[in-house]
């Protein structure tokens, strides 16, 4: 069973095409194992990305160095998954 302990989901807001391009570059970095829930496409649209625990600091550092705005949507993905599982079990009972 794969767990998602420490995985975070960030919402990234881009202001211009250059920032979109930076995120597309980030998307191409396979070693970070990012999972884009909403891919970078246009400046007006938010980008949501799941980041494995090991890559969280690198990604945040990258965004901050580029001055790209972001917020943490999901602090700990596993916590939400556990809650979801519990809700299903409760319902079944």
């Amino acid at each position, binding site marked *: 069973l*794969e767990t998602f302990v420490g995985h975070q989901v960030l919402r990234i807001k881009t202001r211009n095409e250059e920032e979109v391009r930076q995120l597309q570059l980030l998307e191409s970095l*396979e070693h970070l194992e990012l999972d884009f*829930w909403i891919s970078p496409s246009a400046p007006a649209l938010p980008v949501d990305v799941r980041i494995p625990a090991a890559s969280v600091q690198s990604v945040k550092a990258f965004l901050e160095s580029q001055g790209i705005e972001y917020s943490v949507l999901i602090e700990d993905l596993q916590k*939400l*998954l556990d809650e*979801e599982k519990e809700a*299903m079990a409760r*319902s079944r009972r």
Partner: protein
Amino acid sequence: VKRSSRAFDFSSYHTLDEIYSWMDTLVEDHPGLVSKIRIGQSYEGRDLLVLKFSTGGSARPAIWVDTGIHSREWISQATGVWTANKIAEEYGRDPSVTALLDNMDVFLEIIANPDGFVFTHSSDRMWRKTRSPNTGSTCLGVDPNRNWDAGFGGDGSSGDPCSDIYHGPFPHSEREVKAIVDFIRGHGNVKSVISIHSYSQMLLFPYGYTSVPSPDYQEMNELAKKAVSDLAAVYGTKYTFGSIADTIYTAAGTTVDWAYDQGVKYSFTLELRDTGRHGFLLPSSQILPTATETWQALLDIMVHVLEHPY
């Protein structure tokens, strides 16, 4: 004790077995209206099941609806279950549903990607793709919403089997996709295809593989505008709408582009709640509100299809 579709908890997420079992009870509860069709098997050998809502006739004009082709989008499958029940219960009560089913059939595939759905319950809640192996790669699965023969392999899809938007080795390589293709082609009288996804609150229509407006852009846009307005009237949930390419990004090989290119004019795709706070992990407490508001948009589209034969 006989099971009843009414005893089902629509406000909770369910496993594949629970949903398939509930489909049987729905058919039992509405024998003159609802039947179950097996349109194929998934890669791992699971049945691909479709609920048919019909009051008779043969090869009547039809509306196709699928939910959950991306397995991790659990709110979609849950909305599919609720919607199936709603259609069955409203026939004979709601004038729009009654008129619709007196003249057209509705086909609803609640679990369009069963292998992926089971995998989200057992191993990886974030799994999106099918579960078929890829030659020369250890990565499994194809994105079934990039696998259609409509701009196949173009922008917004990937040739990397490890990518979540991997388009697959060739169009309709995935059994889950091919089954729908064969069904719609074989039926020959499908007038609308509505493919339900989540999340990000959007109502989209062709094209995705090109930013060129489709010939029916104006009509689709007007219909989408009405649908999202009626949806918003329920709980104030705001949807954006437009062509896939204009509204989100260029995405080649999608369901609705294929359907549109096949001559199915009213091809739409919905992205249900929410806007990102929970994403694919939308709490089960939001299933009923999501399904309820989505129903308004679905009904708008279905009634429009009924009233605009072509």
